[in-house]
């Protein structure tokens, strides 16, 4: 039943999109300067229908309607209610539906929010956005339909992968998608802007709040994903430069660059074409990321192993997007008379964009290169953390210095009057670095430089709070927290302690200055899994600190899976992180223990970073 309802609603959505496009085309030809009321109504209807369609799928998951293929494949009647709901977007088909919801709602909101911009610009944005919507609706309807039925109706579902049954991963996709898919609206707007020659600062104003909101959500989405990886995957890290992680980072770089270049466009009316390119690039990278992740190219490296049609469809869609963007830019590009004085805020923002493009290219190349070498020379290579670290980190050092100085520069023409202060701050940063060496231990040259430059950024941004009569709080928060982020990552990376050893019940092990004692192992039966819970005592022989950690080995019923749950004790100074795993054919357990300083501050920094974005969004929305 729900399967039919869903399919019907999907068809209505497709119909709505066609009607919107049709009405818009008529509206374009009408000399009148206002948009037809019927367009608003159809757009509203379209958003409502797609929302109901989504809730139909949620309902199918809630009541465990196994006549729906998607529910059968990804749910189980004994699963907790919360994970039944989050299971809706925890799979390929359901997440695409979420994708279309954001496309549609953003399209509607953009239409009603920008009433003081010209009609043609808004109409073209609407048309292009609806073409995107149609592209994805067709994809859902014909290739990845979440409402496909199955008969005979199975008695029980296959269940959701246990590592996805997690609160962080339940909210991760919606957050990330608001960022990812939210960028579609300024893709459409940028195209509309080129087509209708609506350039300059008014264009910047019409998309600025959309860039801010998608950037903030993207940041949060990436954060939640890394927190999940940290406690769920059991290797104690939070970023592995995995292709799937990179796919979320690439649009983030483009968005960050755009966020800054829009400031120049808004204030000085220059860099228009560059901003448009960034608008187009951001959403293109989002779709590319989706293509790489969904087609199975990256996970298995066997091209299109998962589902060839799925990958092929997105690839064609992606090529069309790129082709149209490049074509429009090529036809409409005009030499603009940008006036930029070398020592000015504009220059520093250009420098920001320059570095962002460098990060983007590096990560893009690292992600795609293995695919090329495999295709060309049949030589599979891995591009992992050592590559990214050695290419990117030296550049970050310089970047942080610019990030500290840049915001102090004035628009149009700047003169640095406070070089002495900057020098003092620099000395302060070096002094603190010495304290760190003194309290922890010495570390490598490059790490020293990272710490010094991040401290330089932190201190000088913090001092901005007191200096000017009028300051930009959201900028200070975001820049400050980016400094803190790099600073704490640096400390965390350099001063983590790791121990890997085997132990059996009742045994005590002494490694360096730590003593480990496996006191107890308990078997517990939970609703949808069995767990072996260990009780492990750790004593630090130097600080006399004692901790008890309870790592788990879980055996899930549906589907039958073994997972290792890390036990984490965290405070403001350090995290104790411990995983336990059984070793086949022996009564020993493998223990991985890590002591990671200032772990929690990495999360706090990123929350602050995105808070800066939200703050800026709210202020901007209030003023306009």
């Amino acid at each position: 039943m729900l399967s039919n309802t869903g399919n019907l609603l999907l068809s209505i959505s497709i119909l709505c999109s066609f009607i919107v496009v049709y009405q818009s085309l008529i509206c374009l030809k009408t000399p009148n300067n206002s948009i037809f009321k019927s367009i608003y109504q159809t757009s509203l209807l379209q958003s409502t229908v797609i929302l109901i369609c989504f809730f139909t799928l949620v309902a199918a998951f809630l009541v465990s309607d196994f006549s729906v293929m998607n529910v059968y494949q990804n749910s189980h009647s004994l699963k907790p209610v919360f994970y039944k709901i989050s299971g809706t977007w925890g799979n390929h088909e359901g997440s695409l539906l979420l994708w279309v919801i954001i496309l549609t709602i953003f399209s509607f909101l953009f239409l009603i929010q920008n009433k003081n911009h010209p009609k043609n610009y808004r109409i073209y944005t609407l048309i292009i956005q609806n073409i995107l919507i149609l592209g994805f609706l067709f994809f859902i309807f014909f290739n990845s339909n979440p409402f496909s039925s199955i008969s005979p109706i199975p008695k029980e579902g296959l269940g959701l992968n246990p590592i996805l049954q997690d609160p962080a991963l339940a909210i991760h996709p919606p957050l990330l998608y608001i960022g990812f898919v939210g960028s579609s609206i300024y893709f459409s707007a940028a195209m509309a802007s080129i087509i209708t020659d609506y350039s300059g600062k008014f264009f910047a104003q019409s998309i600025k709040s959309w860039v801010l909101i998608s950037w903030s959500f993207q940041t949060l989405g990436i954060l939640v994903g890394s927190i999940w990886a940290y406690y769920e995957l059991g290797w104690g890290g939070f970023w592995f430069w995995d292709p799937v992680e990179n796919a979320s980072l690439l649009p983030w770089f483009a968005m960050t660059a755009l966020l800054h270049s829009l400031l120049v466009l808004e204030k000085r009316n220059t860099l228009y074409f560059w901003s448009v390119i960034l608008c187009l690039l951001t959403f293109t990278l989002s779709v590319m990321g989706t293509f790489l992740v969904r087609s199975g190219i990256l996970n298995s490296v066997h091209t299109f192993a998962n589902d060839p049609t799925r990958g092929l469809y997105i690839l064609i869609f992606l090529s069309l997007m790129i082709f149209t963007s490049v074509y429009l830019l090529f036809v409409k590009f005009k030499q603009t008379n940008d006036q930029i004085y070398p020592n000015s805020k504009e220059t520093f923002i250009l420098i920001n964009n320059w570095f962002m493009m460098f990060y983007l290219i590096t990560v893009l190349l690292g992600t795609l290169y293995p695919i090329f070498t495999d295709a060309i020379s049949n030589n599979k290579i891995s591009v992992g953390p050592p590559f990214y670290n050695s290419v990117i980190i030296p550049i970050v050092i310089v970047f942080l210095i610019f990030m500290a100085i840049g915001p102090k520069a004035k628009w149009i023409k700047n003169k640095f009057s406070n070089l002495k202060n900057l020098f003092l701050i620099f000395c302060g940063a070096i002094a603190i670095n010495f304290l760190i060496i003194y309290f922890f231990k010495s570390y490598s040259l490059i790490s020293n430089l990272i710490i010094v430059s991040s401290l330089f950024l932190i201190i000088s941004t913090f001092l901005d709070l007191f200096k000017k009569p009028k300051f930009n709080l959201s900028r200070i928060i975001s820049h400050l927290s980016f400094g803190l982020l790099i600073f704490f990552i640096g400390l965390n990376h350099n001063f983590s302690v790791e121990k890997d050893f085997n132990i059996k019940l009742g045994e005590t092990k002494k490694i360096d200055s730590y003593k480990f004692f496996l006191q107890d192992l308990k078997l517990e039966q939970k609703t949808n899994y069995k767990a072996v819970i260990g009780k492990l005592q750790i004593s630090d022989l130097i600080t006399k600190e004692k901790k008890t950690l309870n790592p788990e080995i879980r055996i899930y019923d549906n589907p039958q899976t073994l997972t290792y749950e890390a036990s984490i004790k965290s405070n403001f100074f350090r995290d104790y992180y411990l995983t336990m795993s059984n070793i086949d054919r022996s009564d020993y357990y493998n223990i991985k223990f890590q002591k990671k300083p200032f772990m929690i501050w990495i999360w706090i920094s990123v929350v602050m970073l995105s808070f800066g974005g939200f703050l800026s969004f709210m202020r901007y929305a209030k003023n306009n």
Partner: protein
Amino acid sequence: MKIKIFLIIFFLSLNSSLYAEKSLDENKIHKNLRCLVCQGQSIADSNSDFAITLKMVVKDLIDKGKTEDEIYKFLSDKYGDWILYNPKFNLGNFVLWSLPYAVFILGGIIIVFLLRKKSKKT
């Protein structure tokens, strides 16, 4: 003053990096090796039989007095370059290692060009 401080830091860190060279960090080597039977994990993070075996192989090679690079070479000869998370710097990977910096330099040139052209006009 600035130079002095810089020199002190430089030698301090040089000292520390030299010190680190003395003993081979087993864990660091593990982190640079891909667990071939897992999905995107290093052997340091994995508990698979493959990872456990490979860790023993690495330990064995270290005991035999092999250097870090020799260990990587031994393993990549055996399992292919797929096992190394740090791609080799060779002809095939030349583009990978150099393109980011080439783009970086090009970007710098574009900005300088842009600024010079504008300031000449005014």
